[in-house]
């Protein structure tokens, strides 16, 4: 009798150990050939920037290696968009390093090195990995993971260790309302994601009155639809359905039945790529007649076209599109400072680097995050976190990604205030094509309405 209990206990222990052992050391993926491990300064526990400036700190022509830490969702729900984002960031880093790095006024040349890990689209992993990046890997600057949920976890770590973090792929407003000081947002905030879609709808068909919001129960999408509902009600719309679904939902049948029952003219919502695509597919399979259908995140991804006919007519807000017309000239006209490549140059470079892969706005966001950091370092003329922070606070810039300016108030420090969304729609022109349908100043085609 006793022996069996001992055997069972050993079995339990074995299972627990194998489960723990399974989550082995994360495989650090070095983005450049150099090794990430900082030189062993056993003595200095001083400011991190000192460990960056290596031994020969003779000012003239000194070289400095800045470590940028971030995580990628190589697996899990956020995989598709995260990889795009990191591709963009990596392209920026490779271009800067290939050009010899950034030169500061005292002659120091700064090159960048990326250290990253797989966060598995999991918040707990993000916390562990960013702590590791900030402490063991001694990253000088951090870039956020992809998605608001994961970024919220990473931002707290960045603030805790006093690291400047540029967030990209993260639109939720809440992250910036917690009194953070070192975190800066590249994306348009969630509260402004769907407001333009409602403007578009009103502009196209003023008779529409019934709206349905079906959204993912995640931080980001909830923020978006709450703001959108408030705006919709202010415009006089009637919200006939407002319901969230679990991020892991595979069966949208019950929602689609409810939608059919409440007979809305327009459906807005979704969440991220995976659930958004599944929702669009199942909505099409059920032949639901709706005039206007806007989904978050999924439609602007080129992969959305894999849905075939189900994608036609679907609208999506985008942080950036290749057709976007921000150039040095438009900056000069608007009296703004310009920095970086224009959209065409970015698209060409991206396609060349990634075997013809078309960049999505996630890719552009990744690149923009690096670009913003670069400009901040140049403006600050140093890699000192406090100086870089001040430079970011003062930034008022036009880039291929759009206008970049940060909120500097205490309540919402770091929130993006300059950038706004464009809206695309998939149309069938002998094959599926993404057209910009709003704002009218940037539109490439008229909205296809009602949806086929």
């Amino acid at each position, binding site marked *: 009798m006793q022996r*069996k209990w001992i055997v*069972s206990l050993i*079995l339990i222990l074995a*299972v627990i150990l194998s489960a723990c052992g399974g989550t082995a050391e994360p495989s650090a993926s070095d983005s450049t050939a150099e090794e990430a491990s900082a030189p062993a300064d056993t003595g200095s526990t001083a400011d991190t920037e000192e460990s960056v400036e290596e031994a020969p700190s003779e000012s003239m022509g000194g070289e400095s290696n800045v470590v940028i830490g971030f995580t990628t969702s190589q697996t899990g*729900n956020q995989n598709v968009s995260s990889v795009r984002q990191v591709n963009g960031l990596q392209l920026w880093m490779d271009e800067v390093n290939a050009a010899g790095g950034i030169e500061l006024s005292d002659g120091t040349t700064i090159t960048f090195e990326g250290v990253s890990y797989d966060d598995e689209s999991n918040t707990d992993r993000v916390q562990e990995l960013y702590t590791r990046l900030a402490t063991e890997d001694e990253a000088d600057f951090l870039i956020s993971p992809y998605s608001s949920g994961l970024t919220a976890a990473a931002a707290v770590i960045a603030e805790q260790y006093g690291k400047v973090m540029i967030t990209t792929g993260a639109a939720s407003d809440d992250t910036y309302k917690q009194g953070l000081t070192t975190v800066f947002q590249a994306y348009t905030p969630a509260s402004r994601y769907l407001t333009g879609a409602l403007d578009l709808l009103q502009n196209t068909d003023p008779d529409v009155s019934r709206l349905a919001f079906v959204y993912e129960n995640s931080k980001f999408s909830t923020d978006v639809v709450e703001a959108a509902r408030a705006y919709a009600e202010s415009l006089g719309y009637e919200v006939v359905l407002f319901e969230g679904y679990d991020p892991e939902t595979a069966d949208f049948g019950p929602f689609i*039945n*409810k939608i059919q029952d409440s007979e809305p003219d327009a459906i807005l919502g979704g969440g991220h790529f995976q659930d958004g695509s*599944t929702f669009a597919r199942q909505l099409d399979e*059920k*032949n639901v007649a709706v005039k206007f259908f806007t989904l978050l995140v999924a439609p602007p991804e080129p992969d959305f076209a894999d849905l075939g006919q189900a994608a036609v007519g679907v609208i999506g807000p985008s942080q950036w599109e290749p057709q976007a017309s921000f150039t040095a000239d438009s900056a000069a006209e608007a009296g703004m400072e310009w920095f970086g490549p224009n959209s065409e140059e970015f698209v060409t470079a991206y396609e060349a680097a990634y075997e013809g892969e078309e960049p999505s706005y996630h890719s552009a966001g990744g690149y923009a995050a690096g670009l913003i950091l670069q400009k901040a370092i140049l403006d600050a003329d140093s890699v000192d976190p406090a100086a870089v922070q001040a430079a970011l606070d003062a930034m008022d810039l036009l880039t291929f990604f759009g206008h970049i300016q940060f909120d500097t108030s205490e309540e919402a420090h770091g929130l993006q205030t300059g950038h706004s969304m464009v809206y695309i729609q998939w149309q069938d022109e002998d094959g599926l094509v993404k057209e910009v349908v709003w704002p009218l100043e940037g539109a490439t085609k008229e909205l296809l309405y009602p949806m086929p």
Partner: protein
Amino acid sequence: MDLLIPSLIDGLLLGFVYGIAAMGLTLIWGVMNVINLAHGAIMALGMFGVYLIFTFLGIHPYLALVLVAGLGLVLGIVIYFVAVNRVIDAPHLSSLLSTFAVNMIIIGLGTAVFTASPRNVDFSMGSFTAGSVTVLGTRVMAAVLSIAVTGGLYLFLYRSRNGRYVRAVANNRDAAELMGVPSTRILGLSFGIGTMLAAIAGALIATFFPFTILAGGSYELKSFIIGVLGGLGNPVGALLAGLILGGMEGIIPAFLPTTWVPILEFIFFVLILLFRPQGLFGGDKS
């Protein structure tokens, strides 16, 4: 009213597949008193099986289903002899831990090989619309195949020699041994049939929902409820109970936010355990 009919139909069609999934669990449970905690993981393997065969070999999903069923049977027999046979006479905890360990191994390997990124079987059979109801071809096929499988299982259990052996062993293993039934082999076969049903259910689900290696978890939970509701070891009971649960899942969202579905399902489960633990359709191990 307009909302109820499509919801009910959707729920019932899904209920057939739930029934098959539960049948696998309840058969093993009923025959050898083992709770197969690897049930969900094997369903997920069924999903991946169809996905891989369809995507890389180009074989039609319903033909791939036959292949997946065969593989499920073999896998089950292997799992039985490796992990379950030695602890079959031990206290419940041992066999529970054993199947749990198998579950962790499958999920661990699956995550390492396939990653946690969701997959889709890009297969469509169109849809039929009648009034306010639109039904997917793949869901109807899944329901039809589920009924066919149930029929096949019934025929096996009640009209074939091996089926009789299974029932005999389930009833009283020692007596069956004395009558010349090779009980260990029959237990292996039963476990294999149980996992085969799980794999079939997974394969059918893959034709209309996206999935990951972890997707089997929620279906495993439902299988427990259905197994208890239908009476342990009763395949037809499992199918009917699956329909009841599927119907509930279809109807509840019509009145409440969808997030209430699992809550009500489990309250229902607790109520059954309290008031009719032998299930709705008897509980004798046939």
